[in-house]
């Protein structure tokens, strides 16, 4: 054989162990964010659900405003507002059954509140009171998580454990666009897909990680595209369209509950306020950008839909606002009381049984407190 004949005779074949695994096509996200409000799909939406979403959006907006105001009064150390992102927050909470679990990040106070966590207890972390003010088991809401993306593997583990126990529980885990760059995001996605764990990952792509825009965070076509590499479906949704977010999440939850495994949902939204009250957003973004998003406000979108279809009138809007006002007034009143903290609690929950070292330190602190209570005269030196 000539060299050329040899070359032609050699037909590259796949290596013996190679097999196609998953057809990527069904996993790929839609090219444009899925929308319901203002489209024909809206006609199919459950009007009762739309009303509930609306009421929660209005409450959520008011809650964000009140919490931000509380930072100005020194009642909250810091507040990462989710103004503009309420549709994601509310849909995440409403889509879950009681037995399901929510794994929020530090920005997702509102999702916790919409799921039933006491509005004051949801703020203890940000107030400087205890790290987690609520019992995570009471509403199946994991502690608000400040290290980015680290709650995602927890959601996977919990969902996996539930499935091993035969419970049809789904975990929904929330993360920001910046958080998707963390290693824990990758590890969680991969574990979930390999274990076919009943988890839904909700990325709130609000455009920024503090000051860093998405373009500097990732080179992926969309964050939803990241799912394909793990072998799970990725879905792209308009994060300001509460009906669309709810529908996409509901599909993903149903898919997970039926044993279909995890889904990654990217909700495209926008952070209207600064990262937190302590951040100066004018350093990294132009005002015009914010204005464009105000026209695509989640409350406006839903209000337009509901009024257009005769499902909401002036009285309804007024009622929703009053309900939100009540929530805000209650929050204000309760947050303006000084929290009662017991310093001896410092040692109470480090271990199931305190170590001898902690018992010694407890005695020391008690003596210091006694001396403090006795005042300068009582202090024996």
């Amino acid at each position, binding site marked *: 054989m000539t060299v050329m004949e040899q070359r032609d005779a050699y037909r590259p074949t796949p290596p013996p162990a190679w097999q196609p695994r998953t057809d990527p096509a069904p996993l790929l996200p839609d090219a444009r964010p899925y929308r319901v409000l203002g489209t024909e799909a809206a006609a199919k939406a459950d009007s009762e659900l739309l009303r509930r979403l609306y009421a929660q959006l209005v409450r959520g907006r008011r809650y964000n405003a009140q919490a931000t105001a509380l930072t100005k009064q020194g009642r909250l150390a810091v507040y990462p507002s989710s103004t503009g992102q309420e549709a994601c927050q509310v849909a995440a909470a409403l889509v879950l059954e009681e037995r399901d679990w929510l794994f929020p990040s530090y920005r997702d106070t509102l999702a916790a509140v919409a799921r039933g966590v006491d509005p004051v207890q949801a703020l203890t972390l940000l107030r400087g009171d205890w790290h987690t003010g609520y019992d995570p088991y009471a509403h199946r809401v994991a502690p608000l998580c400040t290290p980015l993306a680290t709650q995602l593997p927890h959601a996977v583990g919990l*969902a996996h454990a539930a499935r091993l126990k035969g419970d049809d529980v789904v975990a929904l885990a929330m993360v920001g666009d910046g958080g998707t760059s963390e290693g824990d995001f990758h590890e969680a996605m991969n574990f979930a897909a390999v274990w076919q764990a009943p988890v839904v990952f909700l990325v709130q792509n609000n455009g920024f990680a503090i000051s860093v825009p998405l373009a500097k965070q990732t080179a992926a076509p969309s964050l939803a595209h990241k799912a394909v590499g793990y072998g799970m479906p990725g879905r792209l949704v308009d994060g300001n369209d509460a009906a669309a977010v709810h529908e996409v999440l509901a599909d993903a939850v149903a898919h997970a509950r039926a044993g279909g495994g995890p889904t990654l949902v990217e909700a495209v939204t926008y952070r209207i306020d600064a990262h937190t009250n302590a951040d100066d957003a004018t350093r990294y973004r132009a005002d015009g950008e914010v204005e464009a998003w105000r026209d695509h406000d989640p409350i406006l979108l839903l209000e337009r839909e509901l009024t257009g279809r005769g499902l909401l009138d002036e009285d309804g809007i007024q009622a929703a606002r009053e309900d939100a006002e009540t929530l805000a007034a209650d929050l204000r009143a309760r947050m303006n009381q000084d929290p009662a903290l017991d310093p001896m609690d410092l040692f109470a929950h480090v271990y199931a049984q305190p170590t001898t070292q902690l018992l010694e330190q407890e005695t020391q602190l008690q003596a210091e407190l006694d001396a403090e209570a006795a005042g300068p005269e009582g202090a024996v030196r």
Partner: protein
Amino acid sequence: MTTVALKPATMAQALTRALRDAMAADPSVHVMGEDVGTLGGVFRVTDGLAKEFGDDRCTDTPLAEAGILGAAVGMAMYGLRPVVEMQFDAFAYPAFEQLISHVSRMRNRTRGAMPLPITIRVPYGGGIGGVEHHSDSSEAYYMATPGLHVVTPATVADAYGLLRAAISSDDPVVFLEPKRLYWSKDSWNPDEPDAVEPIGRAVVRRPGRSATLITYGPSVPVCLEAAEAARAEGWDLEVVDLRSLVPFDDETVTASVRRTGRAVVVHESTGFGGPGGEIAARVTERCFHYLEAPVLRVAGFDIPYPPPMLERHHLPGVDRILDAVGRLQWEAES
């Protein structure tokens, strides 16, 4: 009375037995990690568990330490008792974020509502000729993190007893397995494993009067050997095996040092910022008026773990321990 037939067993076998007994006793115990299933772990500590209890209870996970420990957190939240294996000491570092930010403090941040009964098995330490990243002594990092228990066995019986205790603990336990003792044999009764050791108690392995060697894990046999050799010098050394670094058994250690008046802390980990500094300080605080000499440390050098061909120069051996004991005597005389 039945006479118990003692058989030689290795520490690895005792650990396997402990895992098996724990899994049999409690269906919520789940073992997971890299290669722990079909292979039985690179040290074979999980050998046979997948076969006996199924893949769901002894699970080969993806290769991701943060993912393994992070998933264990979620599993523990839902009522399971995960026992995770970190394949080697230096490969546990990717999981430190989960360990420190969540595992160690979940009970605390939820004010007791969410305890995490997770056991983290970490083969650690040198002396096996391992290539880079296979010989670290990482105990100081764990000790510095409130909320974790840190234990390390030195005998076959303790390997069993302490691992059972770790798995039944309602708090997270970092269980450090001295790699070079995996194949050490002791007389042990595998048909009737020993009582479960409570976590937090040190034990006097060898009583003595001249000085106390305070040590743990892989350095225990070295200290016992040193104590034997010291007899030729006329020194009668007491050897205290800590077994638990957190909680720390101040009582046993203090009682010993008060008896002997002299102490040397021995471990493989680096001396600077290592466990010995903490131990020496505690002993000094509690025994100052009983001490005939400063508390000394015999530790690994303050270097990244050396290549295997040089590790014997790094690891504290009998001579270095005896030198330190000699300095104690000298300082006492001057």
